[in-house]
């Protein structure tokens, strides 16, 4: 969420700090009491690079409080905002270039246009935000427009989810009325309680921000620009916006028009089969889930509130931080109970269904049916499209399947054989390397940047390391240290540091190319001279008969890499 820049919300040190991780000359940060200032190269400069001027601007707002602090400065033109050229990573306690935190093609700049926040971000990062731009964003340079942006409150405040509350506040000044409602356990008709809406509209309250959508037409954009988005909690979301759902509306005129204007609209957010692949868009995942769309009754329909609660309940023994760390899962929803509430037949004997012990990672409903196949915020996120793992999804769509995201050392053939034995899923026809090389290696070597990022993250995932071992991963993660995509390099280095012997591995994923290459070479050298258990010297992990790494096979796979440019729109 977005907040005013204060000493509480600004987590980075601004006190005379020089940030060199930016495009151009270093950014200079200063703090003057409770004000935060930055001096940097003018990102809007279109003249010769050597004449690029420096600008000094005040940071006025901050977005993000869990993973990153993104800082917004006042450009000086009316109420226009833009983003600082560097972002502060909270866990790593370091600055990185703005572009580096988004999975984007190396030769393509991430949009840092003046007014982006005013026109786009405002809709979900404030309550009752109104862009109030005199012309549609992008049609006229913003500094030639009137920018009178307003918001009622920053962040997601009460009315974002509960709807307009003036009448509710007025009528509930009467304590007798309040206690009568408590006593009768009545639902207050003067306010929307998202959890008590029907299953469709309940999730749409969350979907207003956690979904991928577009205006129906230019007129709708202008109306929202002036009056704010027309959707109010409890409304039918699709009445006022086009919710992109390629599994359902790929061939509609709206989608075709969107693709004409923006050919990457679908590819940047969805897998080839139409399942959403980016974080923050969980509503799109939900509405494609059988637990939502095929539920027999309203009571058994999956909604956001089936698992999540937006206010920690008073009987939840966890602390606020613990609850928040689980993405606000309700008490008791962090384990299989979440699914078994409806799947009673499985509850009787979970192990018979999973073929894994109940306490193992393979015995977790979440791990198999909601694997970490979405990407965002420089990490892998659980898919919110409830699916059952298949090898078919990996060979046809390119999406890593849940089995091999844990059994990283096994082939697709191994997985298809087990799925056939256990669930009668037909064994698909597999190519030679799909039968002979571990699936994770195929994904790392041949997959697109998103697949590489997800697989690299799983190589640092403790359950996967526990099942598959980790020493054999080092050369493959080492190879990714030279990846063209910043996000892939970041995740590869992060996972590498979780492998015994590499905990202190020094590597800057946005450092100079030569340093990165040196680091990657150093990793391979350290690994090749370390004692490495023979049990991992397997052909499917690309070790030849002599127990040495089969560099030729590795290179052959690399040559088949999907190098299509990918920009994941998280």
């Amino acid at each position, binding site marked *: 969420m977005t907040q005013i820049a204060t000493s509480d919300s600004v987590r980075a040190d601004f006190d005379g700090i020089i940030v060199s991780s930016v495009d151009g000359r270093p950014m200079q940060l200063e703090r003057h009491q409770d004000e935060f200032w930055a001096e940097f190269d003018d990102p809007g400069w279109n003249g010769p690079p050597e004449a690029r001027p420096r600008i000094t601007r005040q940071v006025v707002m901050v977005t993000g409080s869990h993973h990153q602090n993104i800082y917004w400065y006042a450009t000086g033109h009316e109420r226009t905002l833009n983003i600082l050229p560097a972002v502060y990573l909270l866990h790593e306690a370091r600055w990185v270039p703005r572009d580096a935190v988004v999975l984007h093609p190396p030769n393509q700049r991430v949009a840092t246009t003046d007014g982006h926040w005013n026109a786009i971000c405002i809709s979900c990062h404030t309550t009752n935000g109104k862009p109030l731009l005199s012309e549609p964003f992008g049609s006229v340079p913003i500094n030639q427009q009137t920018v009178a942006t307003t918001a009622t409150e920053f962040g997601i405040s009460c009315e974002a989810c509960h709807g307009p509350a003036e009448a509710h506040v007025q009528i509930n000044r009467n304590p007798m009325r*309040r*206690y009568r409602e*408590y006593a009768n356990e009545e639902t207050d008709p003067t306010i929307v309680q998202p959890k008590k809406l029907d299953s469709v509209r309940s999730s749409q309250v969350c979907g207003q921000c956690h979904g991928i959508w577009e205006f129906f037409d230019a007129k709708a954009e202008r109306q929202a620009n002036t009056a704010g988005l027309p959707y109010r909690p409890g409304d039918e979301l699709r009445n006022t916006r086009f919710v992109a759902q390629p599994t359902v509306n790929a061939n509609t005129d709206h989608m075709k028009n969107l693709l004409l204007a923006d050919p990457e609209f679908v590819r940047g957010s969805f897998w080839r089969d139409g399942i959403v692949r980016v974080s923050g868009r969980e509503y799109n995942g939900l509405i494609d889930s059988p637990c939502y769309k095929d539920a027999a009754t309203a009571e058994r329909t999956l909604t956001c509130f089936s698992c999540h609660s937006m206010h*920690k*309940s*008073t009987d939840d023994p*966890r602390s606020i931080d613990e609850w928040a760390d689980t993405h606000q899962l309700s008490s008791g929803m962090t384990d299989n109970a979440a699914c078994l509430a409806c799947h009673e037949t499985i509850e009787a004997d979970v192990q018979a269904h999973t073929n894994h012990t109940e306490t193992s990672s393979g015995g977790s409903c979440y791990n198999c049916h909601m694997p970490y196949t979405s990407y965002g915020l420089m990490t892998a996120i659980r898919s919110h499209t409830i699916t059952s793992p298949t090898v078919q999804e990996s060979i046809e769509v390119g999406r890593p399947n849940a089995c091999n995201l844990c059994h990283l050392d096994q082939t697709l053939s191994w997985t298809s054989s087990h799925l056939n034995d256990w669930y009668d899923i037909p064994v698909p026809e597999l190519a030679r390397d799909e039968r002979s090389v571990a699936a994770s290696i195929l994904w790392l070597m041949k997959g697109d940047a998103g697949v590489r990022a997800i697989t690299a993250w799983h190589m640092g995932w403790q359950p996967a390391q526990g099942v598959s071992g980790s020493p054999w991963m080092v050369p493959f993660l080492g190879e990714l240290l030279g990846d063209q995509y910043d996000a892939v390099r970041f995740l590869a280095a992060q996972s590498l540091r979780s492998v015994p012997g590499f905990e202190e591995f020094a590597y800057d994923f946005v450092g100079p190319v030569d340093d990165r290459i040196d680091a990657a070479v150093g990793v391979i050298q350290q690994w090749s001279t370390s004692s490495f258990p023979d049990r991992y010297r397997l052909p499917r992990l690309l070790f030849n008969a002599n127990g040495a790494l089969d560099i030729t096979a590795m290179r052959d796979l690399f040559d088949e890499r999907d190098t299509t440019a990918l920009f994941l729109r998280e």
Partner: protein
Amino acid sequence: MSHVPKHTPAQLIFASRHIRFGWWSLLVFLTLGLVLEVFHGFKIGFYLDVSNATRRLMWTLAHAHGALLGIIHIVFGLNLRATLEMNKSNISLVSIALIGASVLLPGGFFLGGISFYAGDPGVGIAIVPLGAGLLLVAVFLTARAN
């Protein structure tokens, strides 16, 4: 020549009763304060979590009102013993009102914090206004007699 109050035996009995009640009351509510401090010290979520802010407020109020009322009892007893001229029926009324306030005010706040609703205390809070009314009566009668 200074005015010498006309004490009656009943007045002195009431004075002793309130001084004794006040000290015991202080002991009870200062102990409650200590328990609340322990909750702070050990970061007890039952008391400190944001979702339990109503409980925290109610119990803090119970502690504060109970302790302050204990002091009022002691002051009233000393006042009665030293200078106060009040007829027996009024003393009796003030005594009942003060003791009632000492039970209802902190008791209501405490009950209101045991179980509560979203932003409102539990129904136990309903006895707080009764206690407040009794306290006002006691203070009024005492002020008039001084």
